[in-house]
């Protein structure tokens, strides 16, 4: 079964606004990762958060992890048009040997 499920499926905001994407998963995890994919390209790793961590920052990105709710969120602050992309969470653990990707959130940042 799908380990990571992103919400919403699509998000459209104006430049300068914050964008929040959520990811839920079904079983216990060892770590959860977020990736970005520009249209028609490969995925680029953004952040890895381990199960014993609650929050992580990288530049304008903030990732939180709530293992009690089996959920994670990715916040992009002060968004830019260049942030337009699809964002995927990927969870590892729960007895699975696989890094399981969600179906992604398509973010559009309008200039």
């Amino acid at each position, binding site marked *: 079964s799908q380990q990571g499920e992103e919400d919403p499926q699509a998000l459209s905001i104006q430049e300068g606004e914050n964008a929040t994407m959520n990811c839920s998963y079904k079983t216990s995890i060892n770590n959860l990762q977020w990736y970005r994919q520009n249209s028609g390209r490969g995925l680029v790793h953004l952040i890895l958060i381990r199960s014993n961590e609650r929050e992580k920052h990288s530049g304008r990105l903030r990732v939180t992890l709530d293992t009690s709710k089996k959920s994670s969120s990715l916040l992009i602050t002060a968004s830019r048009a260049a942030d337009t992309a699809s964002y995927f969470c990927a969870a590892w653990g729960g007895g699975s*040997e696989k890094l399981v990707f969600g179906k992604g959130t398509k973010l559009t940042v309008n200039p």
Partner: protein
Amino acid sequence: DVKVTQSSRYLVKRTGEKVFLECVQDMDHENMFWYRQDPGLGLRLIYFSYDVKMKEKGDIPEGYSVSREKKERFSLILESASTNQTSMYLCASSRWGTLAHHWADTQYFGPGTRLTVL
């Protein structure tokens, strides 16, 4: 920086042809992966390899095979291409870890090959 390259960005083949997709990484990574990505289905793992000449089936191995003769190169083979194999194919690699942590590390992706089978 890690660099993962794929042999073609776009490929058009005919039904029944044998298709080779090549992937090369330059960071001495132990683990390599092949995914396919389809609208509404996300990324699905086809095969992975955690060592030279080693391979493991992913979620959707049917109709595919792989080859890893050298550490830096992982090939995906469509033995007899079919129209339902039209897709975006993504290769990825990650560092070596303990057996229990093959999957824990960051994966580095190539740019993808968009394959169309007519």
